């Protein structure tokens, strides 16, 4: 299928499916925000969702870890699977699902606690560390993976909110990594950051690729082209085109995709 074509084009190893969505519809009251989206998320790739504002890409992202459950009046239909298991199945614990499918938000939202506590909170509630020493290891490893360790190692007890915007966002990524997720969802993670901080986040995403399946929503098409291997273009609540990033940006099949990418609208 498309996934295999993409892998072949990249010359990379064969890809495996991590999440699949089939005919996902989201309603806010009577309004249909998402009109039947089907997509496969692969384990090895970074998948980017692009599209104009209000196209449903963030809504769809929030379906993948059931964050839409917390929105009053929102209703989700369709089937979403994580490793072949339906995430809406009563046997699937939503709290565990969100630990396995982590999330990084548009605005950096560290807890108003110390940097250490920010990272340690997730492992603590899931009981991932038995001793303080184990926790120290998890915190250091997560901060190193998020590329923040060298900047904060001497002030782990400072408040997470005292960091700069870019550092805060990397702290949020470290916090998500700390619970050892399988998938990381990023909702426009760099849109509130300056270009240098953005570059660091993009580098970080590239470093994390392969270890975690990553899905990123972005407004910035250059960013999608830089960091992702797969791109999905959303418009007016529908998935218009999904494929290899290179193919989408160089040879889109749909005129709507082409118009958006060339800046006709959006």
């Amino acid at each position, binding site marked *: 299928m498309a996934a295999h074509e993409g892998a072949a084009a990249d010359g990379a190893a064969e890809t495996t499916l991590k999440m699949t969505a089939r005919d996902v519809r989201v309603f806010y009251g009577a309004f249909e925000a998402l009109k039947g989206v089907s997509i496969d998320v692969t384990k090895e790739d970074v998948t980017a969702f692009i599209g104009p504002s209000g196209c449903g890409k963030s809504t769809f992202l929030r379906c993948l870890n059931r964050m839409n459950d917390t929105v009053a009046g929102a209703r989700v239909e369709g089937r979403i699977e994580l490793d072949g298991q339906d995430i809406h199945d009563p046997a699937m614990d939503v709290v565990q699902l*969100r630990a396995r499918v982590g999330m990084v938000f548009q605005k950096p939202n560290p807890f108003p606690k110390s940097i250490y506590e920010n990272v340690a909170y997730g492992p603590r509630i899931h009981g991932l560390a038995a001793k303080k020493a184990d926790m120290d290891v998890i915190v250091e490893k997560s901060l190193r993976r998020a590329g923040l360790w060298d900047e904060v190692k001497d002030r782990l007890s400072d408040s997470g909110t005292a960091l700069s915007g870019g550092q805060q966002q990397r702290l949020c990524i470290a916090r*998500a990594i700390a619970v050892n997720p399988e998938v990381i969802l990023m909702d426009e993670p760099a849109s509130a950051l300056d270009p240098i901080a953005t570059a660091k986040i993009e580098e970080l995403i590239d470093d994390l690729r392969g270890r975690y399946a990553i899905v990123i929503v972005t407004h910035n098409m250059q960013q999608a082209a830089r960091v992702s291997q797969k791109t999905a273009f959303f418009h007016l609540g529908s998935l218009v085109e999904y494929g290899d990033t290179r193919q989408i940006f160089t040879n889109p099949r749909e005129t709507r995709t082409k118009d958006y990418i060339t800046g006709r609208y959006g």
Partner: protein
Amino acid sequence: MTEAVQTAAPTLWSSPAMQARIRRRYRSERLFKGLGLASLALACGFLLFLLASVILSGWPSFRQTQILVPVSIDAGRLGVTAAEAKADPERLRRANFQGVVQDAVDKSVGDAVPLVSEGAWLALREAVEADPALIGTHKDMWLIASSNLDQLAKGRIDLAAPEGDRPVNDQEIAAWKQLEADGKLRTAFNRTFLTAADSVDPELAGVWGALKGSFLTLVVTLLISFPVGVLAAIYLEEFAPKTRWTDVIEVSINNLAAVPSIIFGLLGLAVFLNTMNMPRSAPVVGGLTLALMTLPVIVIASRAALKAVPPSIRDAALGIGASPVQVVFHHVLPLALPGMLTGTILGMARALGETAPLLMIGMRAFLTSVPQGLAQPATVLPVQIFIWSDNVSRGFVEKTSGAILVLMAFLLAINSLAIYLRNRFEVRW
């Protein structure tokens, strides 16, 4: 349309009409500032006047006039010897101290007019109970003066008025002048006022009973209304589905906060006393009644505090797999707690000053003993003030203001404590 824009005349910023408009704008600004300043000055003036008048008239209640009386503690008159007193404290307690003091007073200052308080012997009993070896010895004691003498010594009685119009007769005035001349009078700190309960004699009346009653009542109120109010607010704000029923509950809570407090008193009377047969006049019932009154205030303040917590914190915690209860108790509640405490302080301050609902459940009884428990009859400070202000006796006038001072000090103390706690819990953002 573009043509209209191009041909429009440029704005004449210096035209007289424009200048007049600017002047008018500045004038209204000056007027508004002036009015604001005037109302602030007026409010401060009222407050100062109130404080000054309460302090001036209440201060003397903390001073007490005492008479020097040499007392011979005779074992025969007392009816108990030193050895017996040591062996049986209960017998000592029932000994004839009144007789001993009466003899001493008759001998030294005469019994023509009542100069020493009827409760003066209590001081002797206290002294002998502390040291039974005093029995059989002589002791010079400063005994509490009667209320009339006290008022004379404090200069609060108009001596120029004709005898029939003033509460003291000429004989008492003569005795006072004699005592003064002999150096047998002094004014000391009024321990009785801070340690005793109510009494028919102003010089023996104190606020401790009412203060303790207020404290016990507020403890019950706080223990009930804070947890119940906060939990109700958390459930309504964080967990309850938004349905017609939650709307009805919300409107009801808002309305309850505006219900006159005496209605809650009637409710307490009907439910706690008449239906549940709880003890009359007891702090536990007062506390429950005031808790009903305070609950809506705390629920409303707590919900506002929860609403003010940014949703991004909830998302962050949910996003790493915290359960809804963990989100609330680990993240939302710590951030909302300062706001909740502020609402609770306001509610408690109101409860502390509340009189009407407590009258309904019988907390206006005349009580000469300090309450020892939650189920014993008690009164509270505002009710005590209300009772004393009704009393015609001169000595109670200063006691009324004195009790107001104690009430304000108590209020200030619990508010300071609450503010200290709030600042400790406050998370730097």
